[in-house]
């Protein structure tokens, strides 16, 4: 038991994402200002903040869905430079779940899941399907494998999207407001899957306003506003003893109702 803990402790020390002085502009608009963030392997981070604060943009920089103009970003030891091979290498290590699921509507659920393993990892079809079914079982919808995304509920689609990312056995999972487009009744089933994933030790960066989720699983909660990281802390400190008045105001606004 203690040996296991030792092992986990060791991997936890590995810095898997290192963001240094990251700056990004949309035209003349300065969206990200001097972002510095280090994520250790197995760490679970929740990012919150008002809309337009740059939180989605920041996590989208990590798999290069957004370019940045200044600063440096290293993912799993690979530095993000303007090179296709490099970018694809990083993307293979980083899974992403989107607000609007972004499943491929012309492919069945199973084909959505096997696409990456077959075409990117060059696995055989049988092997890819075995992996896919395994993950579909973990998100508790193996019976939907042959349906199309349009036939599933929002919650089911988002669970498929999570499974699709997991099929690539990523080192890091990014979640960009995964529950914001869901009906209230379906949020829980998606959060349950995410909690399970967190308990298994996946490195996770999650943009969300589900504060219950943050309190339950996050190692660190980050608050962003105006393109800056304003405050970061353990959930306990973050919610109970906010250091800045800006975070206090934000928390009072989202927790009031």
């Amino acid at each position, binding site marked *: 038991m203690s040996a296991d803990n030792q092992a986990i402790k060791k991997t936890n020390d590995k810095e898997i994402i290192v963001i240094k002085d990251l700056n990004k502009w949309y035209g003349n608009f300065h969206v990200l200002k001097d972002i510095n963030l280090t994520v250790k392997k197995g760490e679970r981070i929740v990012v919150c903040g008002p809309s337009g604060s740059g939180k989605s943009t920041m996590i989208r920089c990590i798999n290069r869905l957004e370019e940045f103009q200044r600063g440096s970003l290293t993912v799993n030891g690979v530095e993000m430079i303007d090179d*296709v091979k490099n970018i694809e290498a990083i993307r293979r290590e980083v899974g992403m779940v989107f607000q609007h699921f*972004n499943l491929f509507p*012309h492919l069945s659920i199973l084909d959505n899941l096997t696409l990456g393993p077959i075409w990117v990892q060059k696995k055989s079809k049988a092997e890819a399907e075995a992996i896919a079914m395994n993950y579909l079982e973990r998100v508790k919808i193996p019976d939907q494998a042959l349906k199309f995304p349009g036939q599933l509920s929002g919650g089911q689609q988002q669970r498929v999207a999570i499974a699709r990312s997991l099929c690539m056995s990523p080192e890091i999972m990014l979640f960009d407001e995964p529950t914001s487009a869901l009906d209230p009744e379906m949020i829980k089933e998606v959060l349950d899957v995410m909690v399970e994933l967190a308990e298994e030790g996946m490195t996770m960066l999650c943009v969300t306003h589900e504060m219950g989720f943050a309190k339950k699983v996050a190692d660190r909660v980050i608050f962003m506003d105006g393109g800056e990281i304003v405050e970061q802390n353990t959930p306990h400190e973050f919610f109970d003893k906010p250091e800045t008045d800006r975070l206090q105001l934000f928390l009072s606004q989202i927790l009031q109702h």
Partner: protein
Amino acid sequence: MKEFKPLPDLPAPISTTGPIGWLKNNLFSSALNILASILILAALIATLPGMIDWLFISANWSGTTQADCVKDGACWVFIRAWSQQIFYGSYPDSELWRVNLCLILLTGVIALSFTLPARIRNQISVPAFLVLPFVCVLFLDGSYIGLKQVTTNLWGGFSLNILLAAASIIIAFPFGFLWALGRRSDMPFARSVSVTCIEFFRGTPILALFFMGSVMLPLFFPAEVSVDKLLRVWIILILFMSAYMAEVFRSGFQAIPSGQYEAADSLGLGYWQKTLLIIFPQVIKVSMPNILATFVMVFKNTVFLLVIAVPEMLQVIMTALSNSNWLGGHAIEGYLFVGFIFWICCFSMSLLATSIEKKLDTSHKN
């Protein structure tokens, strides 16, 4: 605790469903609608009997020469007497099987793409389609595969309209796709070449292109180089069609939400994998009505070939009309027949496209 019981579903009121409901909703829903329905009905009563009489009842169906057309109605004998030319042009009698073979191959390849299981459909149909035009050329010409050569000036009739349109559409498909990709590309060279090609061929009338190809182009070539006229026409049709297809595809590309690109990127798919596996199938789906419209347009445009004396169907009819044995006005029958045949073909293509749309539709919206 009280148990919640949903109310049972009741049938809809009779006046909104069934034939009476249909009539009420579609023909007699308002004063203006009632008036329009009555006027149209009156117009049909006034014209339809005469039309049917001319077309069928007093029409001349049997015989071989103009003298057999004794009754008042349409002289279908004219069409019958010229039927071989109308369909095959001047292709030699003994070699007609080659034209038929090509048409059967075309039908076969289309049928194949509908019947093959989805798993292997693309791997087989796509190469089959792309090879088909060249196989047809080999058979129709014959000289390269040990058959008697039939020069292209003898090819003609409606089979030429069909095969030329099909061959152009097939080759224009990948070209149009590449041009559309080029136009969306970040690379300045690819983009400017694509934009130039698309805008040139879309901005020029097809008639002008045909004249240019048949009259002007040979002037630019050295005297000893001669490119077959039909080949030139084929290339022009391909380029013209590609430009239209490129714009059709481009509109399709723009209909695909950016999330699809992002999801494909985040899985680590490369550019071509993303384009061919994720984007292209969805582009085809949303573009289907426009692709069909372009197909129909090119198919009908093959009639314009008569201006540069390619013996396609309308040209054959016009030649027949000026034949000394058939003088005296069978123009109506001739043109009606051409219109009817084209309408049948275009309508079938329309039905085909609708069924493809249904087949591709996996959105399961209501």
